[in-house]
């Protein structure tokens, strides 16, 4: 990894110029921070695949979007579907490349760069795979700045870019091409095909030009997760970890407390996003002694302190296991765990009216005003 701190714009901390094999663990850890709900099922297979690719093909150049020629055609990739399906049915290796090639054939273009649809979870790693396979640079920007559930929950969609034509390429060698003008329709069409494709699929979408991405994508998100990952790998004292993470991500600790109740899958889905609502109740130790209720869907969507909304989507909320000084994934929580509740603000665009409508609390069935918009 080569830092180019001398040339970065003000406020842009520790940008990364390329991603090599040695950066893969940090990238993985950072990607996990931005979607703490995901377990570690794919860790070894994915990271070793990517590490091998980067060792064979050399590091992938990571370019800030404003340094790329505005006319360069570029496309986003991500993993669509379930992470456990990905563990059960590992990729053959060429799914992402073939998905991109299909769009190239359809549009008659050659993509000069790849960018992540969502720089978090495994979807932060697969663009590196695709860039290494295609031999093109990777753009240090993404559409979400974290993960959201649906493919049109992106900054590009808000900026008016269409996700289509898009191709979903399954591990069985089959693929689906979707062409629909409306992002929401495209998501529905796609989602109904994922199961048939094998539970997960390599998605190539939002084909566009680099010039449009300068205004449509969220910049610097890939180098950010690499930096976050480096911090997380150090395994320091939790207090110090939170302070350091705060410098990079703007996160803060809402409270420290002990888990006193886990409420699993007790209620029907109440939002537009497919997920089972459940709750974790944490009794704050020290401070005000508040009762924190953490609402879970496929991620943490809201935190109530004594019934008052303290944080909520699109804020990114994660739990740090105090005893281990590491992120606690949602499937590893147990009664009695001492956790820090960490709130990280999402990128500013998600707090706009349009952004809130799309990914705010209302989309999870919580009809309360967000604390930042009260």
């Amino acid at each position, binding site marked *: 990894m080569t830092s180019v701190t001398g040339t970065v714009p003000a406020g842009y901390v520790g940008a990364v110029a390329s991603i090599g094999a040695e950066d893969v663990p940090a990238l993985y850890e950072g990607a996990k921070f931005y979607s703490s709900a995901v377990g570690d099922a794919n860790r070894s297979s994915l990271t070793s695949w990517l590490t091998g690719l980067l060792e064979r093909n050399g590091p992938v150049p990571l370019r800030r979007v404003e340094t790329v020629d505005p006319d360069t055609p570029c496309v986003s990739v991500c993993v669509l579907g379930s992470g456990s399906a990905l563990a059960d049915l590992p990729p053959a290796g060429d799914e992402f490349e073939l998905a991109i090639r299909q769009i190239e054939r359809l549009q008659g273009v050659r993509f000069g760069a790849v960018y992540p649809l969502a720089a978090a979870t495994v979807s932060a790693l697969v663009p590196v795979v695709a860039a290494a396979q295609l031999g093109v640079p990777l753009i240090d920007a993404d559409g979400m700045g974290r993960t959201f559930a649906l493919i049109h929950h992106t900054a590009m969609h808000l900026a008016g870019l269409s996700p289509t034509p898009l191709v979903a390429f399954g591990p069985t060698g089959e693929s689906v091409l979707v062409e629909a003008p409306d992002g929401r329709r495209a998501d529905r069409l796609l989602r109904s095909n994922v199961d048939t494709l094998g539970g997960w699929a390599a998605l190539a979408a939002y084909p566009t030009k680099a010039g449009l991405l300068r205004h449509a994508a969220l910049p610097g998100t890939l180098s950010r997760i690499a930096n976050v990952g480096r911090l997380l790998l150090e395994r320091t004292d939790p207090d110090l970890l939170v302070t350091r993470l705060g410098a990079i991500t703007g996160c803060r600790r809402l409270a420290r407390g002990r888990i006193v109740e886990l409420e699993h899958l007790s209620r029907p889905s109440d939002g537009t996003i497919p997920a089972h609502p*459940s709750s974790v*109740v944490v009794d704050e130790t020290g401070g005000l002694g508040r*009762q924190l*209720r953490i*609402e879970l869907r496929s991620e943490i969507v809201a935190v109530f302190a004594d*019934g008052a909304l303290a944080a909520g989507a699109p804020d990114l909320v994660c739990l740090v296991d105090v005893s281990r000084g590491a992120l606690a994934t949602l499937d590893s929580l147990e009664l009695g765990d001492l956790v820090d509740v960490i709130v990280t603000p999402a990128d500013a665009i998600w707090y706009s009216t349009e952004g809130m409508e799309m990914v705010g609390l209302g989309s999870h069935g919580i*009809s309360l005003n967000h604390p930042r918009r009260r």
Partner: protein
Amino acid sequence: MRPRPSTLPITLGELVRIQPLAGAEGLYLADASRRVEQVVLAETFERLRRCTPHVLVVLHDEAATGGWSLAAALHLAWERNVTAVVVSRTVAGPSSAALAERLNMSLLVIDADPVNVALQLAGQVSAPAAARALRQAMCAERLAEQTSIRGVLGVLNSELQGVPVALVMAETVVAGRAIAAQPRPNVERVEVEVHAPGERPWGRLVAAVPVHGPVPAEQVASLLRLARPALQAAWARTRLDSSARAAHEQAAFGMLRRLAAQPADEEVGGRSGEPAAGPGDLVAGRFRDPAGDVDVPAWSSELGWQVGGANRAVWLAPVRPTGEPPEEVTHLVRASWQRGRAGWPLIVQGDGWVSWHSSADPDDVAPVRRAVAAFRDSAAAHDLVIGVGRAHRGVPGLLRSVAEARLAAHVARERGPAAVQWFDQVGPQAALAWLPISEIAQVADLCLNNLMDARDRTALVQTVLAVLDCGGSLSQASLRLGVHRNTVLARLSRARQLGLTFDEPEQRLALHVLCYALVSQWTDSNGHPHAGTAGAPGGASAGGAPGAAGAGGGVAGGAGVGGAAGAPAAAGGAQLSGRRPAGPGAEPPGWPHTGRRSA
């Protein structure tokens, strides 16, 4: 100004006593005295935000999806200062209760449809008087279910939260919360008389109603009145129960006696089946070693009796025996004796009551001493004397101690009400206590006509008794009587003329006993001559004789003397017994005098 009771807003505490909230579970009840002015069926958080203080919120639909929504609703309710939140049971969990407690917000969970519940509640809140009437009806049902005085007071105190209630008898709190009877500032005292059967005043229900409290005094008074029949029934029930227990104990004690006496009866030739009469009958153990083995029967411990250790008996007896004591007196004596000593038995035996204390250490007299000391006031009030036996082991020992206690009680009679006599201190003098005073006096009536007709017979008999007591010493007798020696001489001379030939050796013992009997009969227990003893001899003794009251008028004078033996001592005053009746207590009341009266 205080609003009229009919329009006084209903409180949360009142609402949770009647349906539908009576069926609700209070996960947390912050303040039952908070008023409820309005009911809001909140479907959205927006509706919750518009709530005014003192409303009761029923959550419904979007506001009641559980998890975060109840937490958020509780927070909003706290912000809006509502009285309580009602929600379906399915959405509330332990953490909801914890949050409600943290926010001090009442939270009730219901199983019924929230919309129906809200409608019913709205009706109750808009007509508080009707809701209160319903509540009183339910309270009456609860009261009717109670079978004990304590239970009735428990219902009243739980119904009237914040208003302590007590049952007071003669300024003493018998049940309930004592604070109700204490004068306190800003408290209105509500009292309701409770009558025993026969409209006799029995006690008062007293409630201390806070002046600015949520419950109006009128409502408290009507609730207290509702409780009266239940209290009376509970009181009657305790009386019934205690009668049954008394009968049970009496029968068991009879069994115990029979058990101990069985071998002795065989020794003396099958003299069985005869109830205890004289002291000898009582002392079954007299015939046998007191430490003789009689297994303690299991049923004695079922009654709560302890017989296994060293038993020290206590005999409670009236100063003037009138046969078996009336049930009312037994009830009072039992209540007084067992106050603080609920485990001690109290069994009616003949004219008195037996109790005992069993202890591992025969020399441990402290419990009995305390019991006797605590009972002395009651003994004085009921004209009772107390005899205490020695400690003996086992069942035979118990019966021996009972006999001793009884003997001691007879000795104690000489000293009047509340006298306590320990058998250890009695000695041979006890023999005198068993003298059939009345019968001997009757003998005087028959054998010493002249003396008994003399106007100065009292002085003559007292003088002869004094001289005999002093072994013939005239000077000692004159000192004792406080008269001159010559007066003594003159009286002796006159007594001799009237038949009191005390200096003839073969008559001396008989005349000594006779004089003792006459003086005892003419003198009350305090040593004062009976009223009229110095007057007309015949009618005089009728008034003050023991047991004269209630005498069987038809008993012919003297008919019983020397009559058929063996008739058992039965209860009642009309008993005719030629044999010495069952101790002084079973004396046929008044019969020596009826003869004179008819004569």
